[in-house]
């Protein structure tokens, strides 16, 4: 079989961070070739390159044996490559038929609208997928899984032979997943090639013919799915050098500072979360993207409302509705997206560092400029922020130093509880080590630290205990000695070998059915 799509030695870096380092990947007609990897392994970057959304720094792409010099989204479309993203990208105020027609039609703005044709085509395509969605319905009235199906219908309508699916089941429930996988099997039986990305390993085993594992921007293995087992796959995903130097820390944990009991929220998808953090302790919060870690942090900090459960601080139950109330209880929160939430980019370093503690430098509302300078200078000194001056806008600093400013803001309120959400994301190695040291120092001074991180080595090295979240609840808590990469991943993915076996059997059944139907 010839390669439908071939990517050879692709490299890509963003602002100095190497996202892909010589990744090769090939897709044959009539196969599902899954891509798996930890958060940040480079999956999304690879997809963006395969779909033409980004161009690689080096390496080459070929579609059906013909080299493609510069792939753009429009060219990808013309070459029969369709990408289905995690979040459907449909026009909510247009009908299903119109959405499908827009994907398919190219040409003059003034051509006549063939309403009857649109509707017929949409119905045909949806029928091929074996779903009953009225083509006249507005997309905004569809459920998430229905929208996902319309995305796939768009791909079918364009006669795409290469279908890229990026976490298509992330927002689907069990039964809907089954239906989607049946559609995937049918596409494959029709001879399409499918690039399938998913965090759910049972699903990957259930649908893939081959699996490529990405780790740290490299393709570490491409294997036939049948030749791999779960344990081996997980080992390939996380098996990196854990010898990276992490500072060690001594000191015993004190009393319970933060005690979360059976916290639930329908809107945020949290279910019965119970977790405690002691004074002087670092508790790592691991889990896949979307497992509810950030939602938990935001609920504790008063940004989201909880339906049930309680939060105790130093043994006293508190009700927190707003960030300033959380701060009054001594809670600090360094949010995940520093550019969006962590710092105010056009503001000076000193102003950013004092923004959460303005009551200290501005008693009675008037800012004491000297006190502000002192605090800004102290932050720069203590955290080793590399900045031309404390008056420089934060946007002029590197990512790592911006993050240190975001940290400085919270250290200034001398929090007794500090929640860090991905504190080293997109931060260079040097600054990362410095941030780790700061976190350790903070815990040594008696703060209770809740550390959310998708980077397993970081969580394992810094945490006294690791709590693993899965689907909005705590899947398990591992003490330092027991917390290994494999155990954490096992809990985060939490499928047993038995479930994997069941998934494989279901796959065989689906394939047989799809083969029968296309015959």
């Amino acid at each position, binding site marked *: 079989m010839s390669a439908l799509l071939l990517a050879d030695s692709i490299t890509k870096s963003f*602002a100095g961070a190497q996202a892909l380092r010589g990744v090769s990947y090939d897709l044959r007609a009539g196969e599902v070739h899954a891509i798996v990897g930890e958060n940040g392994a480079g999956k999304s*970057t690879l997809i963006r390159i395969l779909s033409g959304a980004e161009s690689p720094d080096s390496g080459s792409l070929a579609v059906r044996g013909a080299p493609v010099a510069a792939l753009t989204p429009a060219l990808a479309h013309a070459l029969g490559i369709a990408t289905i993203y995690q979040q459907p990208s449909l026009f909510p105020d247009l009908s299903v038929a119109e959405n499908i027609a827009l994907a398919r039609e190219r040409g003059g703005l003034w051509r006549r609208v063939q309403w009857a044709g649109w509707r017929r085509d949409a119905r045909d395509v949806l029928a091929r997928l074996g779903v009953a969605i009225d083509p006249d319905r507005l997309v905004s009235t569809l459920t998430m899984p229905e929208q996902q199906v319309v995305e796939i219908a768009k791909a079918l309508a364009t006669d795409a032979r290469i279908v890229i699916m990026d976490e298509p089941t992330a927002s689907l429930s069990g039964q809907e997943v089954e239906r989607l996988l049946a559609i995937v099997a049918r596409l494959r039986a029709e001879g399409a090639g499918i690039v399938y990305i998913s965090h759910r390993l049972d699903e990957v085993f259930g649908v893939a013919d081959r699996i490529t594992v990405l780790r740290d921007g490299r393709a570490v293995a491409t294997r036939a799915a049948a030749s791999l087992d779960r344990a081996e796959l997980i080992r390939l995903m996380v098996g990196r050098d854990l010898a990276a130097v992490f500072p060690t820390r001594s000191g015993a944990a004190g009393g319970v500072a933060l005690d979360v009991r059976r916290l639930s929220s329908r809107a945020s998808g949290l279910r019965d979360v119970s977790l405690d953090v002691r004074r002087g302790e670092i508790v790592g919060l691991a889990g896949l993207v979307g497992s509810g870690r950030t939602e938990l942090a935001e609920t504790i900090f008063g940004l989201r409302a909880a339906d049930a459960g309680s939060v105790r601080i130093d043994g006293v139950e508190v009700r927190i509705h707003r*960030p300033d109330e959380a701060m009054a209880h001594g809670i600090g929160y360094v949010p995940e997206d520093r550019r969006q*939430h962590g710092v105010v*980019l*056009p503001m000076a370093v000193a102003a950013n560092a004092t*923004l959460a503690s*303005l009551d200290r430098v501005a008693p009675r509302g008037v800012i004491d400029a000297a006190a502000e300078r002192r605090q800004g200078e102290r932050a720069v000194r203590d955290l080793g922020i590399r900045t031309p001056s404390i008056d420089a806008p934060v*946007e002029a600093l590197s990512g790592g130093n911006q993050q240190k400013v975001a940290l400085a803001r919270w250290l200034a309120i001398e929090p007794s509880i500090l929640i860090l959400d991905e504190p080293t994301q997109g931060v260079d190695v040097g600054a990362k080590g410095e941030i780790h040291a700061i976190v350790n120092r903070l815990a040594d001074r008696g703060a209770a630290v809740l550390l959310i991180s998708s980077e397993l080595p970081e969580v394992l090295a810094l945490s006294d205990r690791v709590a693993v979240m899965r689907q909005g609840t705590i899947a398990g808590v591992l003490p330092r000695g027991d917390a290994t990469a494999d155990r954490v991943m096992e809990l985060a993915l939490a499928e047993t070998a038995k479930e994997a076996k069941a998934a494989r059997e279901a796959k065989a059944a689906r394939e047989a059915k799809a083969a029968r139907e296309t015959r």
Partner: protein
Amino acid sequence: MSALHRRERSVALAIAALAALLAVVRPSYFSPENLVDLLLSNLGVMTTAIGTTLVILAGEIDISVGSVFAICSVAAGAAAVRGAPLPAVALVACASGAALGLLSGVLVAAAGIPSIVVTLAAMIALRDGLRWATQGEWISGLPDRFQWLGLTQRTYPAAATIGVALIACAAAWMLRGTFAGRAIYAVGSNADAARLAGIRTRRVTCGVFVAGGLLTGVGALLNAVRFHQIPSNGGIGLEMKVVAAVVVGGAAVTGGRGTIAGTALGVVLLGAIGPALTFMGVSAYWERALQGAIILAAVAGDAIGARHAAGRPARAAAARV
């Protein structure tokens, strides 16, 4: 901050260039009568523009200032006609403005309606409401002590100018030196980040509308005392003048960036250019076109600057995925 100072410098340079040109071509432009006239007709604009600067810095917009201005003028006049003492008249003007600002502020901050919609509705409803209430009649028979705020025609310009300058200084100081000012900039540049830093963002949003309304009331009062009658349709087009001055002065319409000094220079430039054209014998029709060109030039400068800066965050965001 350096970009801001650049803008203020270029507006100041434009004013200087205009002044130099006029000094050569039409020295009569600098006659005391003309300057005082120019000053008096722009004091109200300046005061209102200071308020609008606060609103725009917080990332909002208030296009109802013209209608609020009219209401405050009429309210002050009505109080004066009924024999209220001058401080009470002033209070009525300010309180009417603040109350209308509070109304818009609550609708924006608490109900979450976009400020452009709220203030557009306010602009129309208040204007028509006032027309209905006054039946289009002007307020006349104003007591003498209302004229020139109880001062004389000679002393009033200086006193009012000093007053407006004090207001400008107070606003500038508030923005630079107080918690409230810091919060306005923070909310305007990144409301999410400000909220996460414990700032009560809704209060800030509401607050700038109240301040904006209050200052519009002050502007209306300063304007009303110049005349013997108070029109029931004052302040038409004021919102455009004011927003134009703020934008020319370097404030970002998206919030978080701008200064009172920039706004003041913007008011001076846009206020001076119209009469200058008249003095030079250019048709009045060109006045608006030229003002539009100035705004466009200022904003185009912004857009080009922003395009340069935008490359970085976009790429950094992509690197995270």
